[in-house]
Structure formats: structure tokens, C-alpha cells
């Protein structure tokens, strides 16, 4: 860690932390071992690594969808397990919408399951759809939407509870570049407007640098965080940043870090 050009200052306000987390699957695969990761209040943290390095598993463990076989998940503040749910939003790699329900019913789901009264829920669904620019598509069915729009619905659903922590598992990997850029910009805008914390899993160096305030680089077999780096470019970031020399340099350095992680396992 000492060789890092931009050492990350130790912060005290960890929202959630993984301490020495390991995960072995029943088939013997050791997905994670000795994973340490701190998610800080308000940051945009990317988990960057090659396929199969356990990024998604780490995300699922934070979400409570998977239990670690060793180590611990520590939540800052007095979060009880039950109330943690209302603090987490999750966006899967696929839009994961209910095909039998229209857009507004899909977005309403988390509120419905939480027993939110209908009228209050309706207002929040409208706001969430407004946020992702799909207000006029409330009564359309998912199959009638493009891939990018479906992902927007998925994001609206994750944000409708106004979660403290938004977990995103390679949400834009299946989209074309133009759509991905647009969604990247929208995501940054929402992140700043809502002041939420985002953990974003990706295998794209470019995407991670563009979006993140901090990047945790992971290496495979077994998956762990080998280096962390802050991305010290100011927000709001836009097309100017995407085409700047700074961005290119940051991408190159991150790319090198990833290459070292893949080669040696440590930076």
C-alpha cells in the first residue's frame, strides 16, 4: 500500500466495513479470502477487477444476500439487521423487472413490500421515475422498453426507498456505449442530488475512473482488495472530463494497478 501515489486517508465515518471476509462455496470454490473493505459515508466506491475475482460476491455479502464463511460485516451506527434493508438499494446486472407488472408497479415494489400507504408510495414512485426521466412511461410494460430504459427503471426502483447505500453489480455492462455514457452521467447527477453512498462493481477501468471518488482494485483466486486509490478529480464530471488528459492519465494509472494486481496479486 505504501507505493500508492495517492494514498487514501483513513476515514472514521465508515458506513459499512468488511473485515477479513472469506467466502467459500459448497462446491469448494474459494471466492473471497481476507477481504478488507471500508465503505465511507457519501462516497462513490468502485470495485474494479477481472471476471471471477469475487466482486459480485463481495457486493452480495454487503447486501446480506450471501453470508461470509469467515470475517465480519460491520455497520457503522446502530443499524439492526432488519432496518438495514430499508437502507440498501440493489441494482443487478440484469434489469430484473417483473415482466407482468408495468413500470410504476415495478418501481413501487420495495414500498409495497415495506407496507407504505398507497398515496405516499404513488408520490415517491412518480418522483423516482421523474429522476430517471421515465415519468411518461409509468404504464408501459418492461418488454416495450429498450435495454437502457429498463435499467433506468431498475435504478428508479432501487432509489425509490431513498437508500443510504446503493449497491450496483455491473449494471451497465450489457448496454451499448452511448447508452452507458448517458446512464453514467445520470447516475452521477443522482448520486450528488441524493447524497447517497454508492458501491459500484465493474470490470471497466474507464467506467470506474469516470464515476468513482475511490477505486478498490481486486485480484482473483481468491478474491481480495489489493490496492485502493482515490480519484481526485472534482465533480461534477462531464464530457470535458471524459476527454481530458487528466482522465486519460488516471485511466492509465488505474489500468497499471489492475495489471499489477492480476500479475502479482499485490501492487
Amino acid at each position, binding site marked *: 500500500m505504501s507505493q500508492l501515489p495517492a494514498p487514501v486517508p483513513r476515514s472514521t465515518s465508515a458506513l459499512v466495513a468488511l473485515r477479513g471476509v472469506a467466502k467459500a462455496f459448497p462446491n469448494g470454490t474459494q471466492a473471497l479470502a481476507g477481504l478488507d473493505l471500508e465503505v465511507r459515508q457519501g462516497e462513490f466506491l468502485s470495485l474494479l477487477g477481472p471476471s471471477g475475482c469475487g466482486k459480485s460476491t463481495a457486493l452480495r455479502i454487503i447486501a446480506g444476500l450471501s453470508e461470509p464463511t469467515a470475517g465480519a460485516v460491520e455497520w457503522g451506527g446502530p443499524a439492526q439487521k432488519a432496518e438495514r*434493508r430499508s437502507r440498501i438499494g*440493489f441494482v*443487478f446486472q440484469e434489469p430484473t423487472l417483473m415482466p*407482468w407488472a408495468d413500470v410504476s408497479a415495478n418501481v413501487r415494489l420495495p414500498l409495497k*413490500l415495506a407496507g407504505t400507504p398507497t398515496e405516499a408510495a404513488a408520490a415517491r414512485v412518480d418522483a423516482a421515475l421523474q429522476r430517471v426521466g421515465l415519468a411518461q412511461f409509468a404504464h408501459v*410494460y418492461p418488454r416495450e422498453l429498450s435495454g437502457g430504459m429498463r435499467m433506468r427503471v431498475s435504478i428508479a426502483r432501487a432509489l425509490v426507498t431513498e437508500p443510504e447505500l446503493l449497491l450496483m453489480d455491473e449494471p451497465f455492462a450489457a448496454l451499448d456505449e452511448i447508452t452507458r455514457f448517458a446512464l453514467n452521467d445520470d447516475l452521477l447527477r443522482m448520486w450528488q442530488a441524493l447524497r447517497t453512498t454508492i458501491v459500484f462493481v465493474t470490470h471497466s477501468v474507464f467506467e470506474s475512473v469516470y464515476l468513482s471518488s475511490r477505486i478498490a482494485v481486486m485480484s482473483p483466486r481468491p478474491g481480495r482488495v489489493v490496492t485502493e486509490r482515490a480519484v481526485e478529480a472534482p465533480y461534477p464530471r462531464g464530457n470535458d472530463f471524459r476527454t481530458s488528459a487528466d482522465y486519460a492519465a488516471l485511466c492509465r494509472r488505474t489500468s497499471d494497478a489492475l495489471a499489477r494486481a492480476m500479475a502479482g496479486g499485490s501492487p
Partner: protein
Amino acid sequence: MNPASSRRERRDRALRVVLPVVVLAIVLAIWEAAVRSLQIPPYVLPGPVLIWQTLVSDWALLGQSLLVTLTTTVEGFLLAAVGGIGLAVLFNQFRVLEYSLYPYAVILQVTPVIAIAPLLLVYLQQPTAVLVCAWIVAFFPVLANTTLGLNSVDRNLGELFALYGASRLDVLWNLKLPSALPYILAGLRIAGGLSLVGAVAAEIAAGSAGAGSGLAFRITESGYRLNIPRMFAALLLLSIAGIVIFYLLALINHLALRRWHESALQGER
């Protein structure tokens, strides 16, 4: 869609209706011509015209029988729908129940109903026995399809429900049953035809016992009396009943799924 391909599609749809009708007309014409020119006696093979005349003249009797068979079929179908879906949901919620009872559901299914019917007639009143037969044949496809549907839930959606703290009832009602709907409807479509088969099988088995008055009973009875035109007329009513049931269920299927399921979508996206 360009005009040429839309025209082709419309012509295609028209052909799908016209061609079977043309085939039917040709077959009936040849049949009638053969019966007349070869002077085949009606107790061997009646012509279509005679069958139609019999249907009209015997309508009082046959219509009554049709009603009896249809009532049994519909009752058997409804019981099969409720029983099949209900049992599948119970199996899905309580594994112990599934492990305990599923083998017996299979046994009920694989034993030919025509072989069970005489036994049921020993213990039950005939109308009840017929109904039970219709139910036995029809309920298994509903059970099997619903079970498959309830287990075919998208994994990510399942996790999403878990993440948001959904109760078992929430998951069943808002996730599993809607996911299973296309499968349930497919099962019901099979069950509709089969409950007619079950009702007919039981009526035929009961035929010699004599108390029945359904269409299948009329067929057996007419056979004994060498009233072949009436046999054909009753048979015709049975197949029409089967066709109506099939298309009615297909229509329900279409109306329920057209907004979202691949199987019910038409045309271009």
C-alpha cells in the same frame, strides 16, 4: 412493417382459416358421394347429410345429453383447477407435504382412468363417479405445470424480494404466482381437454350400468341399437364441445398474457 410483408401476413392468416374449411368440404363431399353411389347402408356408414338430419331430429335427446356431459366436464375442470393449483401451492410451501404426497399424485395419473372408472362406479353414485374420473385425469397437468411454474422464478427477482424483507405470503402472491401464470394457463388448457376425456371414459364405463344420460352413454347405447347415424351425431357434438373448450381456454390464455408474456405476443416489437 412494409406493405408487401403485411399483405403477405394477412393472406397467410386468411389461408389458415380457408384451407381447413376447403379440406372439410372436399372430404364431406367425397364421403356423401361414396355413400350414395356405393349404396352403403346407414347402419354401416351414414352420409354427412343423414348425420346432420339425425342431429336435428334427435336434438331434444342429444342436447340434453350434451348438457349432462358438459356439466360434468366443467365441474371436473374447475375442481381440477382448484385442486391442482391449490395442491401445487401447498407442495411449494411445505416440502414435507410434497415428498409425502407427490408419488401418489403420479400413481393417480399413470393408472389409466378407463381402468379406474368401473371401480369408482362400485363405490360412488354414477354422477359422482363420472365427476371424479374427470377430475383425476384433469388435475395432474395443472399440478405438474403449476409446480414447474412456481419453481421457475427468476433468481434475481427472488433475491430482490428477500432484500426488501418480503414475507412468504408476499413472495407467493406477488412473485411466484405471477411467474407461474403462463405455466398454470398451459396446464389448464391441457386439463380442459382431458376433463372431457375423463367424463367420456367414465360414462362409457358406466354405460352398461345404464343410469347415465351423457353423450358417451348415448354413443354406447346407439351402438347396441345399431343406430349408427346417432352415434356419429353424438360424436360430432363431443368433438365440437372439445374444440370450443380448447379455444375458450386459448382465448383466456391470450387475454391474460398478451401484455407481457412472449408466448402471447404478436407481430413486431
